């Protein structure tokens, strides 16, 4: 595709750029296929501001007779303003931004054009494969096997080619189970608890429908999971009522009569539109400075964002407790099994498994539980909090995960190997990125689009020696113990680093972080 046909005006002089915490800057604005480029030659020093067009969530234009103003609201929650001389130029640029910021075709997106000198396309893409993950966990290999039933993505399009299932269940059975689960997402192992051999499984809802259909193979599979231990739990991320209602549209739940060894617990986690609207309200509240303390608290409450954080952590705590303290295996699902399910299962793993709390381990968790497990990133992150576009499939589930992880790290500041800057970076990259990692909705789509051959991998980049230190937690002291968060409302806080980043200049807080890092390094050096 030729981007140039969408760029009527490529250059404008004497544009004024206004952005948070900086004085207005005058310079030249330049539109390219993927970026806005603003340069200012003030005396000898020249400054360059580069903005990825994909990062723009909403654009507002106010043209007047001889000039115009464009307000750019970005997906990283920053708001910029451009004063452009000339009405026509203003309109042209606005049109270009509108079109180029919402490209639909994956291969047109910037990651396919990003070619930094330091990185090579020959480098490994991704951190690990299902085969490697399986090979690393020797303990589970006598009861669990790696199945390649999905090698051509035909059994479940949103699953990776290889998944871990009970040894006693053959591929034929899996194919039948897949037909009984929405989107073919049959129950697979996502976590093995070394201490007691219990596991966390995840899937989508069973398609029992209104007439309570059963599937023998599905029941067999679940029976095989708890073989020997006698009892398992199913954490359904919908309320009991929602699960009942799902039967009307062909979905459903595991009934007591058919799955007698499984106990169902319902925890209602919001998803989809509700979550997206919550984010929109929260960001709106954070950006409005005119109100009083009362109004602020009322808006914070009204956004319900912290309630979602609260529920997610509470459900993850419940899941982890079932596994660690009660010693039972657990199956998690909601309806599709691609959103709340992943949120809860990854948080529980962070609580239980020290290996997921290192920098490498955390990125590995995200790769396994979000990228390979088929969280539809492209759908969920098409728009962020500012867009006026009609909501379709957007939902900030991944941002909610990052917030919950931040809460965990705040309560256990020594237990995580990674730092807040990593979470902030991920929150930005998931919406707009130079890297191909968060493109597409599943592994299948990524393979088809050639993402792994033609783009660079964010996770590999973040683990490079040059980046590692910045994203590591200087206070990290590994612990083998489970980290149980407190979920009393008093113990949870608004994540200022993300939501108030552009509201308030955090220069003193940043300095403190730097000071802390230096202090720890100094003390390490001394001892």
């Amino acid at each position, binding site marked *: 595709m030729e981007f140039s046909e969408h760029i009527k005006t490529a250059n404008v002089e004497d544009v004024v750029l206004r952005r948070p915490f900086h004085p207005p800057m005058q310079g030249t604005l330049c539109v390219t296929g993927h970026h806005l480029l603003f340069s200012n030659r003030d005396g000898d020093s020249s400054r360059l501001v580069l903005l990825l067009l994909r990062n723009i969530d909403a654009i507002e234009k106010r043209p007047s007779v001889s000039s115009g103003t464009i307000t750019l609201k970005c997906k990283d929650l920053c708001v910029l303003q451009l004063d452009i001389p000339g009405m026509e130029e203003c309109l042209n640029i606005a049109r270009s931004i509108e079109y180029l910021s919402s490209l639909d075709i994956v291969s047109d997106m910037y990651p396919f054009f990003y070619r930094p000198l330091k990185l090579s396309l020959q480098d490994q893409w991704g951190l690990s494969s299902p085969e490697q993950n399986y090979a690393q966990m020797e303990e589970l290999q006598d009861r669990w096997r790696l199945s390649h039933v999905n090698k051509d993505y035909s059994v479940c399009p949103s699953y990776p080619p290889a998944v871990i299932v009970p040894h006693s269940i053959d591929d034929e059975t899996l194919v039948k189970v897949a037909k009984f689960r929405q989107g073919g997402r049959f129950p697979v192992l996502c976590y093995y608890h070394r201490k007691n051999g219990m596991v966390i499984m995840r899937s989508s809802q069973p398609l029992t429908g209104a007439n309570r259909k059963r599937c023998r193979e599905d029941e067999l599979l679940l029976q095989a999971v708890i073989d020997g231990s006698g009892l398992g739990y199913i954490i359904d991320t919908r*309320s*009991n009522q929602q699960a009942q209602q799902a039967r009307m549209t062909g979905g459903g739940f595991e009934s*007591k009569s058919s799955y007698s060894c499984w*106990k169902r*617990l*319902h925890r209602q986690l919001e998803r989809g539109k509700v979550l997206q609207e919550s984010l929109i309200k929260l960001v709106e509240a*954070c950006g409005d*400075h005119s*109100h*009083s*303390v*009362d109004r*602020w*608290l*009322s808006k*914070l*409450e009204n956004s*319900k964002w*912290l*309630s979602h*954080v*609260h529920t997610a952590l509470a459900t993850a*705590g*419940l899941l982890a*407790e*079932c596994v*660690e*303290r*009660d010693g039972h295996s657990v199956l998690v699902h909601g309806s599709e099994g691609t959103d709340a399910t992943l949120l809860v299962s990854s948080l529980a793993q962070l609580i239980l498994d020290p290996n997921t709390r290192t920098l490498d381990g955390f990125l590995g968790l995200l790769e396994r539980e979000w990228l390979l497990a088929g969280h539809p990133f492209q759908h969920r992150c098409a728009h962020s909090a500012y867009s006026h576009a009609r909501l379709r499939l957007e939902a900030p589930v991944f941002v909610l995960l990052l917030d919950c992880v931040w809460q965990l790290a*705040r*309560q256990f*500041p*020594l*237990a995580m190997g990674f730092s807040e800057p990593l979470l902030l970076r991920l929150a930005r990259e998931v919406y707009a990125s130079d890297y191909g990692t968060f493109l597409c909705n599943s592994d299948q789509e990524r393979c088809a689009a050639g993402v792994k051959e033609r783009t660079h991998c964010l996770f590999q980049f973040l683990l490079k020696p040059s980046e590692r230190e910045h994203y590591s937690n200087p*206070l990290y002291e590994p612990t083998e*113990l489970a*980290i*149980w968060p*407190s*979920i*009393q*409302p*008093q*113990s*949870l*806080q*608004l994540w200022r680093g993300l939501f108030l980043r552009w*509201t*308030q200049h955090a220069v*003193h*807080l940043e*300095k*403190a972080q730097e*000071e*802390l890092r230096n*202090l720890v390094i*100094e*003390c390490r050096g*001394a*001892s």
Partner: protein
Amino acid sequence: MSFLFEIQVEEVKLLDRYTAKKPAIGTLYLTATHLIFVETSCNTRKETWMLHHLIATVEKLPLTAMGCPLHISCKNFHVAHFVISSERDCQNVHQSLVRLSQPGKVEELYAFLYNPKQDEDERRNGWGFIDSAMDFKRMGLPNEFWEMTDLNKNYELCSTYHSELGIPKTASKGTVFGSAKFRSRGRIPTLSYYHKESNAAICRCSQPLSGLSARCVEDEEMLQAISRANPKSTFMYVVDTRPKLNAMANRAAGKGYENEDNYSNICFQFVGIENIHVMRNSLQKLLEVCAMKSPTMSDYLTGLENSGWLRHIKAVMDAGVFLAKAVAEDKASVLVHCSDGWDRTAQVCSLASILLDPFYRTIKGLMVLIEKEWISMGHKFTQRCGHVDGDPKEVSPVFTQFIECLWNLMEQYPCGFEYNEKYLLEIHNHVYSCQFGNFIGNCQREREEMRLYERTFSVWPFLWENRHQYRNPLHKCSLGREVLRPSTLPLNFKFWCGMYNHFDKGMQPKQSILDHLLTITQKKAEGEKKMTDLQIQLAVMDGVLADQGSPTGTPPEQTSLSPVSVSHTAENAKPLMNGAAVEEAEIELVPTAGSEKMEPVLFPWRSNMSEEGQSSSEITTEAVKLVA
């Protein structure tokens, strides 16, 4: 301290305030000074100490199947829910506590019993440790414009002020006495803080007795004199910290506020901080929010909003910021008052001082500030803290709010303060505990009459000895003379979990960055010291240095970091700590592989584990079992 137990009750249950966790079972003791609960149910011996004077309310609830509930809440926000099996025992404990927690006379307070085994000299030196008059010297007084006067040496000018006051040089004796007659309770305008850099000053007083139309030439002269003491400025601010409506209502009672027409070149301003009654009620509501058993996030946020507490904290902060800005940026002097000038005025003046002067952001500086703006200027600690049985309407969390504002500042400037959160909590604790004499009495004169300096000890040397615990490892002196300009956007005001849920350990972050940093910096300092010692030893062995027995030229940092090594510490450290009634001593009898720390203290997701309604009992009982 007497260890004769007045009452001892076995088989008492201590319930967890928030979850349905299995209660701790133990023995409850009442001593002359403390309530002590010794847990016997688990293999760790856990003691909970509560000083009687810290108890704010004790409530006996109707008998239940478990026994007779006894709810105790303390002024430092420690809350304990006991269940005593026999109603009669409960009745006994209740009656004793009501009597012990509310002494009728000041002399019954703990400070008069407390004896840390110091001799008379140490006691006297201790009281001289912090001298607020020295602080005026530090600010450069006396100078061209300001001087210290002893006109109040017999408390004739103003009975609630300190005996030494800073006043403008040009104010004559007649002006001062005349002005005192026109100010509520004789609390004349006097110097609070002098800002060397700008020559501007913060002065404080009580409201004028202006009524609907009264004037006082001397009072007008007094303000003139303050204004003249800052010759570069053409005007001064007069700040009334009350809401306008309250101030107007006072006019009808013969009090009120300054009429801009009568005073030359003043800029008059209301800042709208509510009175002590509103604050008391607001705190009450806040504590109700804290007491909710398993609130949803919405319940909590709505409760927080309805309490109005953070709104009040912001109002105090806004006023402090206004004052600091006036002095540092407009370079104008400010006169501040409320009604009597001992509550809101104290809050606002001390906050402004902290914003303006880095000295008050040091461990010692905060002591000086509290001594100067609160103790010597007559904040009525006895009444506001309810130390003795008295009018409950006089009780109000004025000092607590000041400490909370300070905490807010520390959150915004993590490198700006020499002290840490623990220091604030410890000071707050001692304000209410009455273990030391500093916060007993309503004004200087009362303290002298009670002979507090002979009969009790001062808290400051005690805090100073333990200063290594109160250090902020991130403190950067390089911030220099910087005036703090905090943001007062509403979203900066957060609920202070560390204060209001301090005793609910499960709610605090389970690992503390502060503790970690204190440990590693301490280790580093010890390592360095060892290194220097070794080097000196080597030097001695090589004959380069003469053996002097001790290393010379130790860097100052090391002395401040080394654990307290004063001779009497070992004996008195423990009683001191226990006396403060804040320590939950945990003595492990059986080592539990260090897993204690990570154990979940709260499992609220347990509360309604099952919505299927059939499996809850089974799983709950299993969950209660501790993982060995």
